[in-house]
């Protein structure tokens, strides 16, 4: 699962029939998002590396901080293993605390720490 912030919503009329009722949110990951799949051409910027689109049935909205689950559990929550979904909102975050000294101890430089603390608001 990854932590992210909802930054947008997607509307699509022509969509896979199994996605007919799904609400689609654009999520910007907090921290660096390295998808397990979906690496592409240049490699330096993995496709979707900076954003992802997730289905949502928890009624999250723009600005909300969310936990997004990837892969099979996301499909299960979106309706079953035959639904073409690879990411779903699994929780709307009330509060997230990042312990910056602990992050520093993990070897994160000041740049990463500053960006993460900003991203977490």
């Amino acid at each position: 699962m990854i932590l992210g912030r909802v930054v947008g919503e997607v509307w699509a009329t022509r969509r896979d029939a199994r996605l007919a009722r799904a609400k689609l949110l654009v999520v910007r990951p907090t921290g660096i998002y390295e998808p397990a799949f979906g690496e592409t051409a240049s490699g330096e910027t993995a496709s979707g590396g900076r954003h992802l689109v997730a289905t949502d049935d928890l009624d999250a909205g723009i600005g909300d901080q969310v936990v997004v689950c990837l892969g099979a559990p996301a499909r299960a929550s979106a309706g079953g293993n035959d639904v073409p979904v690879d990411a779903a909102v699994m929780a709307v975050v009330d509060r997230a605390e990042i312990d910056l000294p602990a992050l520093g101890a993990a070897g994160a430089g000041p740049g990463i720490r500053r960006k993460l603390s900003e991203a977490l608001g």
Partner: protein
Amino acid sequence: MFLGRVAGTVWSTVKWPETRGLKLLLVRPYRLGDLAPGELRAGAEASEPTDDLVVCADLLDAGPGDDVLVAFGHAARVAVSEKLAPGAKPNVPIDAAVVAVVDRVELEGEARR
């Protein structure tokens, strides 16, 4: 899943049998700003797709210039499974497919397209 713009088409005949007849598109993923909040509104980054190319199977008849939603992995194989016999397992050796053609994306209050 990610958002991208269809940049073109790719044709290939020598394929694994299960992939025959599949339309393959070249998609350029969008980049939606970096880590820092606020950058998204200001940055021109949000409006231009990247230089990357992802090859995606397509059953929704998307074409160059369309914005699309692409799913990876098992989800992509499931997306093309309606081309297969009913009840057949999604045993197509692909890893990316278009699951929706996007009408509009709203980003933090601003509508695009």
